């Protein structure tokens, strides 16, 4: 197991290098001059511009620029500086925490709501409950975050506060601990909840058709035990893959939600980074996201071995 983890982490190195180089090249190819953008409408002193361009290696070819960047990370743990002179690590530290909180809240909401609804639908297959759940997941999938975010902000944030007189769901900022994340977390998880519900339903329905479920029934076990012990454990295995991969999606997809709810996370920062062509910020955030994907996938694979004894890693 230990050797397997080490091997997987070594495999992550080329993935990280490839992803960062790719993003680096894309930002490099973006039109516009980042230094010119710094001053907005004002005229800039060409000498100062030249100094800054030189300082940030902007006149060097792409691969050389990339080498300066990546060697800094590898040898000095230095993720570079923004054009305003702030180290990227310092800039992102607090923001990463916000996005991670948001993504984790969303993941928990997704797992709980999605699995519960999915199991419920599967056990009532073909009946009204099932149809209602399936229809609402379809609705959830078709509403863009941009719409659901503002609507829920208005209904649950503003109107509910007016009606009840207390703030149950804060509508902006991160000042109220986990409470601040509930509404944005749900908005962020929305589409994923719908997918997970459907996946859970299918998985349990399929599991309940298998031979070992028939065996469990033939053993004279109660329906509750047949489904709860023999069915559930098998039905959950495919869901773990989805949830694991989704953590990365949630973090990457947080941009819109963070903007709507004014959360100071990396999604917001990524948007600004791209806008201002701040290569170190964009690449730094992408590196973090790639790392999250890699670690989440590794955790998923390790969970597999726990859930399904047929899978063993040497």
């Amino acid at each position, binding site marked *: 197991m230990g050797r397997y983890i080490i091997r997987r982490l070594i495999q992550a190195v080329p993935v990280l290098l490839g992803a960062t180089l790719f993003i680096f090249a894309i930002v490099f190819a973006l039109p516009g001059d980042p230094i010119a953008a710094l001053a907005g409408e004002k005229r800039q002193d060409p000498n100062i511009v030249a100094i800054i361009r030189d300082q940030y290696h902007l006149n060097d070819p792409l691969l050389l620029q990339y080498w300066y960047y990546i060697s800094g990370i590898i040898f000095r743990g230095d993720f570079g500086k923004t054009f305003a002179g702030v180290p990227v690590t310092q800039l992102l530290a607090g923001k990463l925490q916000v996005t991670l909180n948001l993504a984790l809240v969303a993941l928990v909401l997704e797992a709980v709501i999605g699995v519960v609804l999915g199991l419920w639908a599967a056990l009532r297959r073909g009946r009204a409950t099932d149809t209602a759940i399936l229809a609402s997941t379809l609705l959830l999938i078709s509403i863009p975050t941009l719409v659901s975010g503002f609507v829920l902000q208005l209904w649950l944030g503003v109107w509910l506060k007016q009606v009840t007189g207390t703030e149950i769901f804060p509508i902006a900022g991160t000042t109220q601990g986990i409470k601040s994340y509930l509404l944005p977390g749900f908005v962020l998880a929305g589409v994923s909840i719908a997918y997970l519900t459907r996946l859970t339903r299918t998985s349990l329905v399929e599991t309940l058709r298998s031979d070992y479920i028939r*065996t469990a029934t033939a053993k004279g076990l109660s329906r509750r035990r047949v489904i709860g012990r023999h069915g559930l454990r098998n039905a959950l295995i495919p869901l773990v893959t989805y949830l694991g991969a989704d953590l990365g999606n949630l973090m990457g997809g947080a941009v819109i939600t963070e903007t709507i709810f004014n959360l100071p996370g990396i999604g917001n920062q990524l948007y600004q980074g791209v806008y201002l062509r701040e290569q170190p910020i964009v690449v730094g955030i992408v590196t973090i996201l790639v790392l999250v994907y890699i670690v989440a996938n590794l955790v998923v694979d390790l969970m597999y071995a726990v859930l399904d004894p047929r899978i063993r890693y040497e």
Partner: protein
Amino acid sequence: MSKTSLRTSPAEGGLGDEPLLAVEDLHVEFVTRAGIVRAVNGVSYSLNPGETLAVLGESGSGKSVTAQAIMGILDMPPARIPKGEIRFRGTDLLKLSDEARTQVRGQRISMIFQDALSALNPVFTVGWQISEMFRVHRGMNKRDAMAKAVELMDRVRIPAAKQRVNDYPHQFSGGMRQRIMIAMSIALDPEVLIADEPTTALDVTVQAQIMELLAELQRESNMGLILITHDLGVVADVADKIAVMYAGRIVENAPVYDIYRAPAHPYTKGLLESIPRVDQKGQELYAIKGLPPNLLDMPTGCAFHPRCPYRQDNCVTDAPPLYGISGARNSACHYWREVLDGDPR
């Protein structure tokens, strides 16, 4: 008679001549989009303690569906049982409440399946799965139940049972997996064991070992065994009597010796002739002409008539009843005498 408590039924004491298990005029149908599929159409058979009944027939003949109806593991719907009785020690199982039925299932009537790999749960150890019987039905604690599981694995002759009790199903060979299935099914000393094609997925030498094991366990415990198979070779050594099924009906019903000596139904005769024999090596193997009928669109009269070499005009119009031939022997063929005499086809 109490409907909920089987243990107090008068037949329990051996009163009367009620058999251990009696299936009476059982009908099972499946409601599908294409129409109603009548999978079992009036099947009757009976089983006594210590007796082995082989139910023979090709796929779709209704032999497994009958067994699943006895176990109460049919999915209802789409299946339904419009007619018939399944009497276990005199009590009609079909009239029992769900809870009472669950008490019979696995404890007093149990079942093993064709493919032990898919029939065992892949995520639990074999010991866990066997011991579950004792934990759930006998309220034993984990340790005692596990010790019982090892005991059972020994009894079905799994080598090094104690070391292997914590292994998972996929870590065993096909024959060993079927032994585990058997261990699980006999855990609570059932009175009836239904084996649904227990050896079909296994290779020939292992088949023989499994059949031997079943026969031995049966002798030790005097349970009734229903052996469902399409393999006549498997049947000859272990069965006491045979019920041959075709298109949801029993077409012949007889002690095993009678059937092998002289079949009284053309279908049975066809089955027997299609067994490969060493003295006919090199010759083309006999096969019954045609295909089994579509259960949605059954032939008129005798369901076998389109494939039957003995067919006469009335076979197309009149469905044959189960004619009594002698004592325990029946045949659903208008011309059973001719078949019995072995007239050339």
